[in-house]
């Protein structure tokens, strides 16, 4: 039996606008860029929605109708859902339609798409709870399986998820801990009781997510029947094929003109041609198959680049100093007990901010490997740090109530559109 587990990550960060040292103390709107650049969050989301989310949702809804055997798994960051609620309700509705079919599972993750697990366990747990409440409110379901930001995984995280009662947790099927073993089985994380781990088949996943349009690839062009054939070959020496990828793969990373939508349309039919193949959601797969062995991951493994570690987020001095400074504010922020302040602090925890400060591919000239809305990693750092300086100033001011100050704050608050849509 080869059970195909299709899982899509749907996320867009709130990018920090160009924020200068002169803005500190005056401007508290960090995310409202309205230029023509890719720092304009609404503009970026409109583009991604039109090129990817909407057409892909339409295709998958139709496929779910035509193939009763098909099932899918998604995860949504809380800040993406906020943005959809505020500016693109019709896109959110199209996601709701998918989930209402009853054959689409939604996973748990951190609300702010953060790396909080590695910096503050308490803050991490708060964000998981916020996310759970949000998913329940928006989609009416309660997640049973967990995936961490960037698929960052360790034994510790698996133990935590086990204790919280999750049935499954996702990880990269990386050779460093798998050794000769195959990612195409269900495993038990070391030190856990009930939870199972599903490992991404990075070869087959990346054939779609990264190599699909690569004309220099020996297998180009990739067709659905060829891909289904590769999947079917797993019969006899594997049980699950975990295809995990960013949802933007469809239409944004791989373009419609290169045939990605046609590939997707044909994929279920081609996979189901083999009588031993089927589709399962993450939780269904964890339930259907016994753990074949134990996996031991004492260090952090992610789904990113050849290192599969966190170096793309916290690999240099600017990244580590920025993230440490941010988490050092936890106590004072929470003590200030100001929802707006806390929400801003948390939106700054989104992993993308630190990714934009990555310099590791910069020097080799291989800048196309990653997407950066800033002119350089250093520019990303400067705006971020100036914003954190302003945040610190707001905490200070909160501590010492001054009349004149309150007046000013009030003016600022009424002039901005703070969403109730956090809704938790």
């Amino acid at each position, binding site marked *: 039996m080869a059970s195909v587990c299709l899982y899509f990550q749907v996320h867009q960060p709130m990018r920090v606008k160009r924020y200068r040292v002169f803005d500190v103390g005056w401007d508290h709107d960090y995310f409202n860029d309205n230029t023509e650049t890719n720092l304009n969050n609404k503009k970026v989301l409109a583009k991604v929605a039109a090129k990817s989310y909407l057409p892909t949702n339409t295709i998958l809804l139709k496929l779910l109708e035509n193939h009763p055997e098909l099932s899918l798994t998604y995860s949504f960051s809380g800040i993406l859902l906020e943005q959809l609620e505020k500016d693109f309700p019709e896109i959110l509705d199209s996601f709701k339609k998918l989930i209402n079919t009853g054959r689409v599972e939604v996973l748990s993750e951190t609300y702010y798409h953060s790396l909080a697990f590695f910096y503050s366990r308490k803050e991490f747990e708060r964000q998981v709870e916020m996310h759970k409440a949000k998913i329940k409110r928006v989609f009416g379901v309660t997640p049973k399986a967990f995936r961490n930001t960037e698929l960052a995984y360790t034994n510790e995280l698996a133990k935590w998820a086990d204790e919280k009662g999750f049935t499954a947790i996702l990880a990269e099927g990386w050779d460093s801990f798998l050794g000769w073993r195959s990612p195409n089985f269900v495993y038990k994380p070391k030190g856990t009781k009930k939870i199972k781990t599903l490992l991404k088949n990075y070869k087959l996943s990346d054939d779609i997510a990264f190599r699909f349009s690569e004309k220099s690839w020996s297998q180009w062009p990739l067709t659905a029947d060829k891909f289904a054939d590769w999947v079917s070959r797993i019969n006899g020496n594997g049980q699950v094929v975990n295809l995990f990828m960013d949802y933007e793969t469809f239409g944004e990373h791989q373009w419609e003109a290169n045939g990605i939508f046609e590939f997707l349309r044909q994929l279920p039919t081609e996979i189901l041609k083999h009588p031993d193949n089927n589709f399962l959601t993450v939780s269904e797969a964890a339930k259907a198959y016994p753990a074949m062995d134990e996996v031991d991951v004492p260090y952090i493994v992610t789904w990113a680049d050849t290192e599969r570690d966190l170096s793309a987020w916290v690999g240099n*001095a600017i990244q580590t*100093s920025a993230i440490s400074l941010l988490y050092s504010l936890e106590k004072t922020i929470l003590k200030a007990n100001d929802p707006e302040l806390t929400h801003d602090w948390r939106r700054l925890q989104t992993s993308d901010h630190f990714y934009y400060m990555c310099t590791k591919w910069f020097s080799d000239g291989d800048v196309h490997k990653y997407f950066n809305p800033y002119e350089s990693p250093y520019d990303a750092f400067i705006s971020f740090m100036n914003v954190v300086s302003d945040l610190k100033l707001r905490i200070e001011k909160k501590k010492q109530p001054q009349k004149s100050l309150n007046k000013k704050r009030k003016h600022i608050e009424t002039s901005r559109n703070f969403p109730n849509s956090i809704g938790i």
Partner: protein
Amino acid sequence: MSLRVLMLGWELPPFNSGGLGEACFGLARALSKKGVQITFVLPKKLDVHMDFADLIFADVDEVAGNLAGAYTTNDSWSSLFPTNAFPPAQDYIGGALKFAEKMGLLAKRYKGSIDVVHAHDWLTYPAGMVAKRVLNKPLIAHVHATEFDRTGGHNPNPMVYAIEKKGFEIADKVLPVGGFMKDVLIEKYNVDQDKIQVVYNGIDDCRRDLAPVLTAFKELGYKVVLFLGRITLQKGPEYFVRAAKRILDYEPKTIFVVTGSGDMEGYMISEAARLGILDKFIFTGFLRGEERDQIYQAADLYVMPSVSEPFGITALEALVNKTPLLISKQSGVSEILKNALKVDFWDVEEMANKAVAVLKYSALKSDLQTEGQKEVRLYSWAKTADQVINVYNQVVH
């Protein structure tokens, strides 16, 4: 058989007034290491040494005791000669033409023993054109600056422009030091695009840690922001002073060091005084060699706010001395360097914003240093020499 090049320059270190001499020297040395035989011709006798090349002086008669510096503009030339005893525009042009005249005699000696003539900037183009004719060999016109760069587009000297244009026409290949300059050559000089090959400058990475300077300030907790270059319109000194004013609002413990000399030095001083920040400025005059490296190493940030900068070799000099960089987007070097902060030269606010960030956040300084160090190794003169040899081979065969 190895390539034999007749290279024509105007100045060489330590008798250089700017980057041109350094660039000629660095390139010639790297070419010779790769087996190119170089005969380097200077217009007049100087006490310089080039153990890797055959150095020849054309012995051009001196005008008023000195040849004009390679960067002399019409205006500054006039200020050298307060009376009208010398018709200004013609004297440095006169020097270039005299060089060409001498070259006519000199080149005959090299008949049959030269493969390529390589001339650096307009002052040597007349001589280069003569050498090409006498030797019947291809001419390479290397462009470190055009008249539009030197004057910032204001009042370019028509005779200099004419010499440059003629030089580009006669040359078999034209080598600008940056992509922006390539556009200038096409638009303003009508140079055939296929004749142009951009060749970025390089640097030899061999700086060691030197004895610290400005220590009295450093011990008091002051940060040092450096301006280094000729103090002329082209280098944007006024933007540096205005940014300094803004930086001091946020980082009052900052000292601004100005290294170099030029016709806008007086303006820079009076502008700093007018803004009430002259006490935060130190003017060191022109420095070279170790003293220059010491200043780079003392600086927490090197700012190059050039209005127009065909390349900007000082940016690479700063990097090999581990100095973080803030450079104008209008420089050729900003086309290749990634690990530098960049800004439009006129955007004083953004210049101050970025400078403040470097002074405030040590992580930013250290990443710019480490990544910059790694990157600058990619831009060695050896790499530039390979590209130039490639051009030689195209025109010789």
